[in-house]
């Protein structure tokens, strides 16, 4: 899952925009954005944050520095060191797909931060906050809490490839006040583009995605 390979595959699958959301880190975001820029694909810097309740949250940004601000906050609240023989090596790469470093933090672990605080911080940094794979039991908002807390400032809910659009609309009818998005959550090249969201946007930016999720000014999520 190196920058050039990912960009090439995304373009081959007909995608206009992707987001890179590593667990609790965005140190590779700039390299992917660079590769995207070179290849003609919009790459949004992002992160999949693990809350203390072990809920996964997707954060998307337009600007690299906003994503880095979230990373700083997450790093200050993320204990532990990676165990490479169990979880694998966490490499930092450059735009040319070369390894330039290793991340020693336990990125697979949970932060000390409650979900609502993470959502709030993402919002204050101008990012988009989406609850990950709510249709799955593990590490999801619904899986961990059984409900969506009143007043939580989420921009959307993600449905994984495992659940069809139709099934999701039925099962998550109580949460229809939120927009649903679909993504591949690709951890391997072959999964890129397996699932995606079709947006109506003016530009490929995180701000436009946020407007679409909130059905503002003509931007929207297109039905599949």
């Amino acid at each position: 899952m190196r920058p050039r390979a990912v960009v090439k595959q995304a373009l081959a699958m007909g995608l206009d925009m992707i987001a890179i959301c590593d667990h609790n880190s965005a140190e590779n975001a700039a390299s992917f954005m660079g590769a995207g820029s070179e290849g003609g694909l919009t790459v949004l810097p992002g992160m999949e944050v693990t809350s203390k309740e072990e809920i996964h949250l997707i954060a998307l940004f337009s600007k690299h520095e906003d994503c880095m601000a979230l990373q700083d906050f997450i790093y200050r609240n993320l204990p532990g060191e990676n165990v490479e023989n169990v979880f694998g090596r966490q490499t930092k790469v450059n735009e040319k797909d070369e390894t330039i470093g290793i991340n020693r933090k336990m990125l697979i672990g949970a932060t000390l931060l409650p979900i609502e605080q993470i959502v709030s911080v993402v919002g204050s940094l101008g990012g988009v906050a989406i609850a990950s794979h709510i249709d799955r039991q593990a590490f999801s908002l619904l899986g961990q809490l059984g409900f969506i807390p009143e007043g939580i400032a989420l921009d959307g809910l993600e449905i994984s490839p495992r659940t069809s659009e139709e099934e999701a609309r039925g099962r998550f009818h109580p949460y229809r006040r939120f927009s649903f998005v679909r993504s591949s959550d690709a951890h391997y090249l072959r999964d890129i583009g397996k699932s995606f969201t079709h947006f109506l946007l003016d530009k490929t930016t995180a701000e436009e995605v946020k407007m679409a999720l909130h059905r503002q000014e003509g931007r929207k999520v297109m039905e599949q």
Partner: protein
Amino acid sequence: MTLSDLVKSFGLTIEAGRDRLREEVTGGYASDLLSDVIAHGRKGNVWITIQTHPNIVAVATMKELSGIVLTGGRQPEAETVQKAEQEGIPILSSPLFTFELIGRLYQMGILGMSPC
């Protein structure tokens, strides 16, 4: 006490790691948050949980736990069983709910660790 003893005493179903049940159990730990087990689990502990996804195997491997018991009649996911067999981590299942199972394990002498 070994996992094999627990299987016999509690009629646990063996879901994975059938050949690793002679592991001596050093104590018990109960949590459904993986980060919590990572922080407090001890080598040789038997982990009581309702989590059935594959990541439980990684945690058990990392902390060198003697095995995992799923409660409430839960069964591990197919991928979880696969990983458990690969890593040699026993996974057992009990029809009892967590609170009840732990109470009985405690009475049998499987104790928890004192707080850090």
